[in-house]
């Protein structure tokens, strides 16, 4: 409960600047997608977002380092991060829900299952299958092949599972005061994350140039890139956060019993890892 020392920050320019930066990014994206102009605005907006976030977090880190935060503030951060990750879970839940809906209902119904019948008039020759290699309409070209889960995706699964383990070792090391091993394990985690992103890039290259899996390749390509793409974006964010944590660790931040920044980064990384397990199972294996 409150002890009367809760830190209420003085006015800050970062929130409103962050809002404007995000607005710039959104307007830039819109102008680029709709009018095919001024694509540099997208990059400018992204740069502005990253800059403002860095400066905002710098303030928070400084306040934390100068001891302005009490236990209650620590709990606020924990609740905040926990619910933020829950919102991310729901974001991916929408995409997994779409995948399951398409696989269990939409594609079989297009084949006439369940007395639907109407699509059987539109596309009488359509045969349901998953992965959907031949979409109903001839105007949409399906993928030629799908990726073998037991090659690159398996390697990536190992990368992420091992990275979660090394991150946990790093966290335990930090809690026990072994800062060197914490730092090394964290560095290994980051390297594994970057390896994952590299292999994911390889796989995208394969998909586009050899397998015919593209965004336009019917619902299989769409769900494949939606799920793996947003996951990859989250790995990128997670790895960036971990790099910041490595930097802070080297700067001497964090104590064995006060390191929520590190812990929050770890929560996020484990969340990204769990999403990948779901992806590996339902996008690649089954």
């Amino acid at each position, binding site marked *: 409960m409150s002890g009367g020392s809760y830190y209420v920050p003085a006015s800050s320019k970062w929130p409103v600047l962050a809002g404007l930066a995000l607005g710039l990014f959104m307007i830039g994206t*819109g102008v680029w997608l709709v009018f095919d102009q001024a694509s540099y605005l997208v990059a400018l907006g992204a740069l502005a977002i990253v800059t403002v976030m860095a400066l905002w977090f710098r303030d928070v880190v400084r306040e934390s380092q100068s001891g302005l935060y009490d236990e209650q503030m620590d709990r606020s951060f924990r609740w905040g991060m926990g619910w933020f990750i829950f919102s991310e879970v729901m974001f991916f839940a929408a995409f997994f829900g779409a995948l399951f809906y398409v696989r269990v209902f*939409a*594609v079989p119904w297009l084949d006439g299952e369940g007395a639907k019948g109407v699509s059987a008039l539109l596309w009488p020759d359509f045969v349901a299958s998953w992965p959907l290699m031949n979409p109903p309409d001839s105007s949409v070209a399906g993928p030629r092949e799908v990726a073998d889960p037991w090659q690159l995706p398996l390697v990536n699964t190992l990368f992420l599972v091992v990275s979660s383990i090394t991150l946990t070792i790093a966290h335990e090391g930090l809690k026990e005061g072994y800062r060197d091993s914490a730092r090394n394990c964290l560095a290994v985690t980051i390297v594994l994350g970057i390896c994952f992103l590299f292999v994911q890039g390889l796989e995208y290259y394969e998909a586009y140039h050899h397998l015919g899996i593209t965004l336009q390749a019917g619902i299989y390509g769409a769900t494949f890139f939606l799920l793996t793409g947003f996951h990859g974006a989250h790995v990128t964010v997670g790895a960036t956060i971990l790099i910041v944590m490595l930097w802070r660790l080297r700067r001497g931040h964090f104590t064995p019993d006060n390191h929520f920044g590190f812990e929050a980064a770890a929560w996020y990384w484990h969340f990204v890892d769990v999403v990948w397990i779901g992806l590996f199972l339902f996008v690649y294996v089954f």
Partner: protein
Amino acid sequence: MAPKIPPKARLEHSESVTGGAAVDEHEHHPSGPLRWLLTTNHKEIGTLYLIFSLTMFLIGGVMALVIRVELFQPGLQLVRPEFFNQMTTMHGLIMVFGAVMPGFVGLANWMVPLQIGAPDMALPRLNNFSFWLLPVAFLLLLSTLLMPGGGPNFGWTFYAPLSTTYSPPSTTFFILSLHMAGISSILGAINIIATILNLRAPGMRLMDMTLFVWTWLITAFLLIAVMPVLAGVITMMLMDINFGTSFFNAAGGGDPVLFQHLFWFFGHPEVYIMILPAFGIISIIVPTFARKPLFGYASMVYATASIAILSFLVWAHHMFSVGLPLIAELFFMYTTMLIAVPTGVKVFNWITTLFRGSITFETPMLFSLAFIVLFTIGGFSGLMLAIAPADFQYHDTYFVVAHFHYVLVPGAVFSIMAAVYYWLPKWTGHYPDERIGRWHFWLSVIGVNLLFFPMHFAGLAGMPRRIPDYALQFADFNMASSIGGFLFGFSQLLFVWVVIKCVRGGETAPAKAWDGATDLEWSVPSPAPLHTFETPPDLRRVAG
């Protein structure tokens, strides 16, 4: 039991603390407009939210009047059908995402810390960020009206493929602006949850919180659960439009109905996001003016939680006529009807609270009583719509329009107005003008019924929604609706007048502005100083 103002000794203690806080020691505030741009204070941000909400309410209202003036008579009079469609779409989007939701968030910003004895919101800078996303998002949304091809014209539910294959180019901007509004809602909700769970005064247990705080806790959970789903579905739209994916395109193996499932998985909890805080407000105002404790406090909490849980299991009742399997029709019909049970608990509890109370009829109470009656009408028409076979008849008619406007206007909007009249003395230190307030109430309540009640009949007789022209037999109903619409719309200017008048002056309000009020916010001075509860009030019961 709802919390009580602490015993006299503690009350004085907390007043002396907050009194000292009026002299602001730990910040030097920037002055002028910068003060509002950079603020981290929950009261200032709450005020910003409320001003934003009122502005959007008036803009969305003007769009509604464009619709009503076109529908005054059959035939095409004033606007082109394409523009009419943009007006219905933008009216819905602005009222839902720009007026009602920010209105409740503004009230939460102001009142949640005051009702739980917290110094501010848990994450004050994040709070400011949540707010300033909104003006940017809605300027972007409004700017689509000026773009080539016009603004969004597919209805506020933006069903694919109307919103993908057949949409105007500006749809991408609409999606991006909705992303920003969604981020704002998620971050705001995270902040509210963290505040309620972590910043309650010592001794305040969960079951000591006011119903407004309780309903907001549950609403914030709903927001965090479903706004990301909305983000997901509009992202899929964005990809279908710009990158050639087939999510909502059957030719590629996708399904337009998938859009509806995802949208309503967001959309139905969204409906409760817009009404649960209203339940909380009514549950505070009714006991105050009936001068009795709320009847069935615990059952109110459980009913709110039940509604929230059920809200995840009812989404397809918006889609009965789309061609669902029979078993799905039955499942969603029964789960929807179940919602009537906890909602009924609430209505009965309010009525029982009134029973044998010493009731007075100040403006906030008038709006609350109107809420109970008129929201219940909207609830009953919702029950009619829940019956799947009957819904085949009502679907996409004006009956649906009548239903959701009854729950949203004399429901959500009236509750926000009740809350504003109720808390204005705390915010400004002055009572709102009771005479103008009553005029505002009676004109609103007459206008709103004249506006929406005939829509039931037009809908049952078969008038479809979202059309600029209609068959002659609907002419009388529509003329009545339009007259009611203008009456309701223009009487809101009285509301603006009352608020401005109250900010500028009026009868001075004491700390405890209402005779029967019992919650913690009435223990701080009126107007509430910029910083309150810097040392939290101690509500722990003294042992023995």
